[in-house]
């Protein structure tokens, strides 16, 4: 099974990188760009085939390692 995990900064946590990208895009003439936020995407291959179990394991991975929940939130996407 393949999984995709998104780790992004919580709302309210300042994202200077996103801001810099937004600024740069405006500078390049992309005027229609509003707020920009940058996060991480982590693609994993899992040997687990049971979806519920995979999701539980991924949750655990996020809490333990993939995200720092003081500043970040995460979303999990599973693809068969």
């Amino acid at each position, binding site marked *: 099974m393949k999984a995709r995990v998104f780790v992004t900064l919580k709302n309210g946590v*300042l994202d*200077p990188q996103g801001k810099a990208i937004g600024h740069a895009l405006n500078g390049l003439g992309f005027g229609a760009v509003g707020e920009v936020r940058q996060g991480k995407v982590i693609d994993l291959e899992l040997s687990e085939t049971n979806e519920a179990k995979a999701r539980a394991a991924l949750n655990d991975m996020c809490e333990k*390692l*993939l995200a*720092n929940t*003081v500043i970040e939130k995460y979303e999990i996407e599973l693809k068969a």
Partner: protein
Amino acid sequence: MKSAVIVFPASNCDRDAAVALEQMTGRKPHMVWHQECDLPDVDLVVLPGGFSYGDYLRSGAMAGQSAVMRAVKAHAKKGGAVLGICNGFQVLTESHLLPGALMRNAGLKFVCRPVTMAVEETQNVFTRKYLHGQQVTFPVAHGDGNYFADEETLNRLEGEGRVVFRYAPGQNPNGSSRDIAGILSEKRNVLGLMPHPERVVDPLLGGTDGRGLFESLIETLS
């Protein structure tokens, strides 16, 4: 004073910390590999600077999960002193021995330069030899030193006198909330700071402001 320096894969200030400790205490510290489950009998544990695990994913995140950190936590729980410098500070926040998080520098760049800070607290094992409010200059060298915590935590840190080092006005190199450079744990036996005291114990290298920190530890822990 007996001390140990933890060595993670790609720690790179482990030698600097060991040299400073030996120079100041006259005793070589134990060098402890990250896979060890036990610590030698020591008074002080140092988590040195560097790029543990390349600082991939997040600075200090993978090191925070290593076997030795369980022993470091136990040491801290017993009231043992723990000093985290730079990457060591990041490891301390990632393993929840200290609150908050260290984010990418606001300027988005690695920054290496001397910074001046005020020593705001001297009622602890790390800074008692400094004068309250004394200005000291240590070098910083980091890309992720932007201290972040929610308002409530920040208020608590300040209320409880746990902000030990604060960047002097105009000196904040990384955008840290409230100019915080170093903080103590609730029990005041764990200190994390971004600037490098171990790089300023030798006059040949541009200063000796870091000595007070080691002298404080020696006086209390010996």
